[in-house]
């Protein structure tokens, strides 16, 4: 047979080397300030996952090097530039012993991995029966530490019930949950070193709750309460991101877990259970409102007081502030039937689904973003609120067309809904 003429023979050496380098980078865990890094576990659960995964990654790396190396070795040793007549190597059709061997050996490796997987999987899905003492209204409650987590487009709500055992079966429709002791949005506080159970659901589409440093993710599925758990070794802030595609602003649905010492957590609970502070000069107005009367603030020099009135007339049909409209509040007019609870808005360091900072780096209120958000939320986070047809509920905060003075008053009022967190926490929770 004729000899084929082929220019030059290249071997797949270069790129495979590149891949090896890439993989070693993966194994090394790379970047330094990656807050969502899955290879930097900060809890027993996350560590057990990592401990399972690291050796598997290592074995996978070895197998990859063996196979890639084998190909390179053969390419170097056995390559030819075309075929001479009858230029044949030994014609081998197979070898049953080898076939059996390389069926059994991978099967054994997989079986070993399977055993480790079963052990870890059962541990990760096991919840300890435990109790945590919290002081509520002067009395010590034994809290079975459960946080009810509800996702909706595009933010997370965390609800704390200290005086009752949460039965996931009995929770029912996440739109009709019983009144909670504490309701927050975007930031969940937990005591450190304590296994916290989560029950997760959704008020609209499927979301997924994920704090990589503390545990894997779990879907928030409407009509179902998914059990999950978290635990943090050390005080600090742990970042998360919704990981099930949930529509337009999926990328802008983030959250944080703040792990605190027992004392700090108790202090946090005390703060959060206090009704919102009423701005000076608006006490009578609020009292009238709560009595169910048509009230008006009248002329006021206090921007915060004017902001409160603006809240009542523009925001209170969706947002709740304990101590202002909690007696009349019946739920939001959004598709999910909910909007973030603003009672202690300024005690949280992020807003708008965890994408904007409430405070600047120097500790001052982030008036720019707050004003911009109230002015035109659509511009900062698409939420399909305004361009829907008749009878379709908005799926996020609509653009209300408020005047600049009203916006400024509202920002002033929101600032009073503290207490303001520590500068340290502000720095730790900063988002870009």
């Amino acid at each position, binding site marked *: *047979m004729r000899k084929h003429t*082929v220019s030059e023979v290249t071997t797949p050496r*270069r*790129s495979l080397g*590149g*891949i090896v380098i*890439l993989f070693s980078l993966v194994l090394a865990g*790379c*970047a*330094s*300030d*990656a*807050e*969502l*890094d*899955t290879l930097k576990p900060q809890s027993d659960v996350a560590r057990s*996952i990592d401990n*399972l*995964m690291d050796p*598997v990654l290592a074995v*996978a790396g070895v197998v*990859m090097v063996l*196979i*890639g190396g084998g190909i390179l070795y*053969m390419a170097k040793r*056995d*390559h030819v*530039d075309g*075929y001479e007549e009858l230029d044949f*190597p030994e014609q*081998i*059709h197979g*070898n049953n012993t*080898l*076939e059996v061997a390389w*069926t059994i050996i*991978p099967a054994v490796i997989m079986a070993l991995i399977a055993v480790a*997987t079963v052990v*870890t*999987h059962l541990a*990760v899905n096991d919840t300890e029966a435990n109790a945590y003492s919290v002081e509520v209204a002067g009395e010590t409650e034994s809290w079975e530490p459960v946080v009810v987590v509800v996702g909706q487009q595009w933010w997370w709500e965390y609800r704390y019930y200290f005086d009752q055992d949460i039965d996931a079966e009995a929770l029912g429709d996440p739109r009709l949950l019983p009144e909670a002791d504490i309701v927050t949005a975007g930031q969940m506080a937990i005591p450190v070193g304590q296994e916290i159970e989560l029950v997760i659901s959704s008020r609209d589409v499927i979301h*997924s709750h*994920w704090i*990589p440093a503390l545990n*894997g*993710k779990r879907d928030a*599925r409407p*009509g179902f309460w998914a059990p999950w758990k978290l635990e943090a070794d050390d005080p600090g802030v742990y*970042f998360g*991101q919704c*990981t099930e*595609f949930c*529509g*337009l*602003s*999926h*990328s802008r649905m983030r959250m944080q877990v703040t792990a605190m010492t027992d004392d700090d957590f108790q202090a946090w609970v005390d703060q959060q259970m206090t009704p919102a502070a009423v701005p000076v000069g608006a006490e009578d107005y609020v009292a009238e409102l709560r009595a169910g009367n048509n009230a008006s603030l009248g002329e006021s020099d206090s921007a915060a007081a004017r902001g409160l009135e603006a809240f009542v007339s523009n925001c209170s049909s969706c947002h709740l502030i304990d101590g202002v409209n909690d007696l009349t509040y019946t739920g939001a007019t959004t598709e999910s039937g909910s909007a973030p609870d603003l009672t202690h808005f300024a005690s949280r360091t992020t807003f708008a689904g965890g994408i904007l900072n409430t405070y600047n780096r120097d500790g001052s209120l982030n008036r720019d973003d707050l004003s911009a958000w109230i002015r035109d939320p659509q511009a900062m986070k*698409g939420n399909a609120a305004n361009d829907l*047809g008749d009878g379709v509920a908005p799926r996020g905060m609509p653009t209300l067309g408020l005047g600049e003075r009203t916006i400024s008053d509202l920002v002033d009022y929101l600032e009073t809904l503290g207490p303001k967190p520590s500068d340290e926490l502000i720095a730790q929770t900063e988002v*870009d």
Partner: protein
Amino acid sequence: MAIIEEPLALESGQADIAERPLGVMTRPQGGNGWRDWLSSVDHKKIGIMYGVAAMFFFVVGGIEALLLRTQLAFPEQGFLSPQLYNELFTMHGVTMVFLFIMPLAAAFANYLIPLQIGARDVAFPRLNALSFWIWISGAIFLNSSWLVGGGGADCGWFCYSPNSGITFSPTHGVDFYAIGLLIAGIASLISAINLIVTVLNMRAPGMTLFRMPVLTWMLLVTQFLLAFALPVITVALFLLIFDRVFDSQFFDPEAGADPLLWQHLFWIFGHPEVYIIILPSFGMISEIIPTFSRKPLFGYSFMVFSGIAIGFMGWGVWAHHMFVSGIGPISVLAFSLSTMFIAVPTGVKILNWLATMWGGKLWFTTPMLFAVGSVAMFTIGGLSGVTHAIAPADTQQTDTYYIVAHFHYVIFGGGVLGMMGGAYFWWPKIFGYMLNETRGKIHFWMMLIGFNLTFGPMHVLGLQGMSRRIDTYSEGFGFEFWNLISTIGSYIIALSVAYFIYNTLRSRKEARDLPPPGPDPWDARSLEWMLPSPTPEHNFDEVPIIESQDEWWHRKYGYDEDHNVIRIATIEEAAQKGDAVGVHLPSPSFWPLVLALGLPLIGYGIIFNLWLCVLGGLLSGGAIYAWALEPVDDPDADHGPHDDHGHDADHSDDDDDGDAVAVGADDSAGDA
């Protein structure tokens, strides 16, 4: 069908008197030009049309990918709006899976299966044409949502409910997704049945199942997977359409529906789909590596059985896509373990390829480079697959870029690279000229490097916690560098694809000054290489009698008493001449095309105005009856005793099948 052992002496399609079923259309008579392509029932022409259309949609899906990567090159960019980003990543996935890889595999399956088993065509040539036309009408329908549907679907290719419901996706994009995939699914279903029957029934004498080339085997397994996976997604898509258009309650959680229903139905289809994508490439690699190692495939029967095992096990792993959906820890564990063990037959395949190369004479032609590159890249994808078969680890990895990296290594690395090798390998057989080797190698290295630059960094990004399907990301999570690298890589892939297209055109031009490649330019092993290049319309002058695996190789070479390879015959001596005259071939028909045109009309009707459904139904229904009344072969063409399609005894045989299956197909769309 008849098994023919002597040259045939029939005139085909040369009748003077045209038949007019229903008095509407003249029976096409074959010949040249576009009309010939529109009415062709030749499996080779249909294969080529599948291939060209698939490459077109590869470019479409690739442009969508480039837009996505451009948006993600830097943090917090506004190059694409979130809505457009969501539509683009949805359509990228749908296009690449349903409109590129599947039809590209269908192109090879159509072209090569009859040649590799020694048949003159597929079992039902007109149904084959129907499959292609239905598929392409579904593909155009699906993409027409950009123009008339208010944008593409924005629910992801997996389209989880309730996000795919009318409340959360109020534009028509999801309607186009559901109906478009239904139409394309009908095409794949018909094609799968057709090809299974072809392989089971139409093999040349002596071509026992275990003498078939591994490519034919893998394509057969693929067709079985298609045949049984598609009905499941059909159910899911119907339920979705009913919910969106007719207000049924399948996916409304407020009415007590369970969003997991969609997930189960989708992934019962969706996981076999992965093997539908990868197995054809495995088959091609199994043809290419032995040819360029000059050794027979190592462990043929193990390769076949591992392929079948993958096909079976592929049905028992679907819920590994749902580890975090809350299906219960025991279910998770069961699916975790079954997923791990599907790695075993896959590993057997990789090791057998390596053993085939071991001690061989490795000639790194372009097809060989692609095949070996594909093995290496697929190995990486397979290994990362093992890491998320581990359910606890998957809770960290799922829905991150680590998964994106994994399945691109499997689908692009394992699937596309392998099929690219197949394209270079069979190009001379299909088009009669060789692709330039130097340019082919440049194409390979560009594609391999671009591919690794694009998808390698996604492993890192995923482990660093970058979620999938996010239209932008913030600074400070360590995502910036690798995203930029990935975007650069994606442009290199785009360049390599452009260079491939350039290579095909340039090589075609240069081929005029080069000697023709002859029947067997690679000194290959399977039956198609005994035919002239390009394959003559009638395939085999006479159907060969098969005596062994690698029949063609054994017609060229034998062994002496010391088991050394000796030459028995030169290629020129052993090959067929392609000069048989008057071989009777199935007559062309326009009705498959007409029938297919009705389906998108029905689709538009469901979305916009039910009267269009009536129009589409009439068109398709009329075409079915015209088809049924039109004999398989032109009755005016002279029939002799050597009819290849065995209809002379009962004319309506094939006709009624066409009727039955096509009516069923019409029903699936017409009833929505």
